[in-house]
């Protein structure tokens, strides 16, 4: 058995999700090959070659792969996958986008969003927004999996694999990249942060999210939000933590003015330590919080910033 791991990156840097994918893949086989597809991404391949447990890195470096459009990435992965029993990609918006295409083109099922590898053909995944946990077994000829990276430890970076260049070029005339509007932030990304502070409807408006900035700066934290805060238009959707947003598992998660809807809990309940700050002492968030502070967030946040 051998696993092809699709590297998560943005042509600038290799994302830690890749290390976590490799760690997850080690549950299947010790023969792990990483595929890096992108443009101007030779340095990414070098970085992937350093991940412990990786035996080889394949580099498909071409302008056609710059934006990792699913139409051509899926064709590339299908071709490369011929030599492997498994393909793993992160359950990010990139992996979720192209992997089902890969599965369909190979005429096999996809197992989405796994949180545990039980055996080479058996995986654990949440369903119903994490209200149930299913263990599923695949009898497909090739096993296509997306991995919830937050559920796995990251493989170390003390490897020394070789990099092999692929000259396969897959293009599609049917889709093209137009533009991107990326949130510019000095802060860590939500899915990679050790500390996250999130605001909910209790923040009252988007401007009040600034109250979280000072605390986030002091803790090196990412800033997130509940779906209620996103739906109310306080903050953009890419800050959303929850079933339909990002799934996170930081060392410390601070929920501010968040009641704790199932939707939100599904996205953060695997955090190591959860702190809840809410003025409603009956809020469901307190039933999952390690430390709860009942109080008005507009009093508590400035005090917390000063105390850190």
């Amino acid at each position, binding site marked *: 058995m051998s696993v092809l791991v699709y590297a998560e990156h943005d042509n600038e840097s290799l994302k830690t999700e890749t290390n976590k994918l490799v760690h997850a893949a080690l549950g299947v086989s010790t023969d792990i090959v990483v595929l890096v597809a992108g443009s101007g991404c030779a340095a990414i391949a070098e970085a992937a070659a350093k991940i412990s447990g990786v035996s080889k890195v394949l580099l498909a470096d071409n302008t056609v792969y710059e*934006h990792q459009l699913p139409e051509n990435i899926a064709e590339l992965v299908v071709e490369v996958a011929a030599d492997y029993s498994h393909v793993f990609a992160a359950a990010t918006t990139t992996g979720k986008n192209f992997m089902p295409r*890969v599965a369909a083109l190979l005429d096999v*099922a996809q197992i989405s969003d796994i949180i545990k590898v039980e055996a080479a053909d058996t995986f654990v995944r949440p369903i119903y927004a994490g209200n149930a946990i299913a263990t599923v077994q695949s009898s497909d000829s090739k096993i296509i999996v997306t991995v919830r990276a937050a559920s796995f430890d990251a493989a170390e970076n003390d490897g020394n694999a070789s990099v092999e260049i692929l000259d396969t070029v897959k293009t599609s005339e049917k889709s093209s*990249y137009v533009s991107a509007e990326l949130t510019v932030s000095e802060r860590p*990304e939500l899915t990679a942060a050790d500390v996250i502070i999130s605001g909910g409807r209790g923040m009252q408006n988007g401007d009040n999210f600034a109250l979280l900035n000072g605390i986030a700066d002091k803790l090196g934290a990412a800033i997130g939000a509940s779906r209620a805060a996103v739906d109310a238009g306080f903050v953009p959707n*890419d800050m959303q933590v929850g079933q*339909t947003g990002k799934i996170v598992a930081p060392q410390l998660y601070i929920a501010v003015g968040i009641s704790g809807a199932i939707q939100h809990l599904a996205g953060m309940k695997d955090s*190591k330590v959860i702190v809840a700050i809410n003025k409603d002492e009956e809020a469901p968030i307190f039933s999952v919080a390690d430390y*709860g502070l009942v109080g008005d967030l507009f009093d508590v946040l400035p005090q917390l910033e000063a105390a850190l």
Partner: protein
Amino acid sequence: MKILVPVKRAVDYNVKVRVKPDNSGVDLNNVKMAINPFCEIAIEEAIRLKEKGVATEVVVISIGDKACQEQIRTGLALGADRGIHIETDAGVVIDSLQVAKLLQKIVEAEKPDLVILGKQAIDSDNNQTGQMLAALTGMPQGTFASEVLVADGTVNVTREIDGGLQTVKLQLPAVVTTDLRLNEPRYASLPNIMKAKRKPIDVKPVADFGVDMTSKVTVIKVEAPAQRVGGVKVADVAELVHKLKNEAKVIS
């Protein structure tokens, strides 16, 4: 322009599901069912495109036992023109690939210019069907859409991606899957609910499609998630910071 909107009957999003005592699955007896929320957004988007004069016909399709005709009727009440029901036996679970293969046959027969689907169903949480359908039919895809603009045989789809938004241009016919912020679905009015009863639903037995319905993925068990035990309430910020530093040791 014709738009096809596949929809799924799923547990109502307000229902907190329970795992069956024998761990064979989730207990769906006497549980309120509804149209999957992302599918509702897909219908709304199709109806808006029709109201703008971009689309001329909206066809809603669902796969399942007789009960899923309720969800097709909901789609018709919201403004879709007609329905297609691919009927299976009650209690049959079909996976995303099989759904995509059945939809592929419908796409070949109906030749829609745009297929709009929800990005995922809130029961199986797979997030696969739209992408699989696109691959099987050779269509380009715009997943997790927050904006859809149709012009001159193409569609520009703005997508919710990790870190922000991305816009892609797709040649029609194309597949679009919906994210939360695409629109806010309307409620069906009573006159429209009455009118929907007279709109046609074409019922086709699943056996007519020649798609292999045996799944290669077996559910071994379904369990309730490990419960997180609530901790302690702290009196003030000073106590909180003290505990985070000395007890939990997550800040220094």
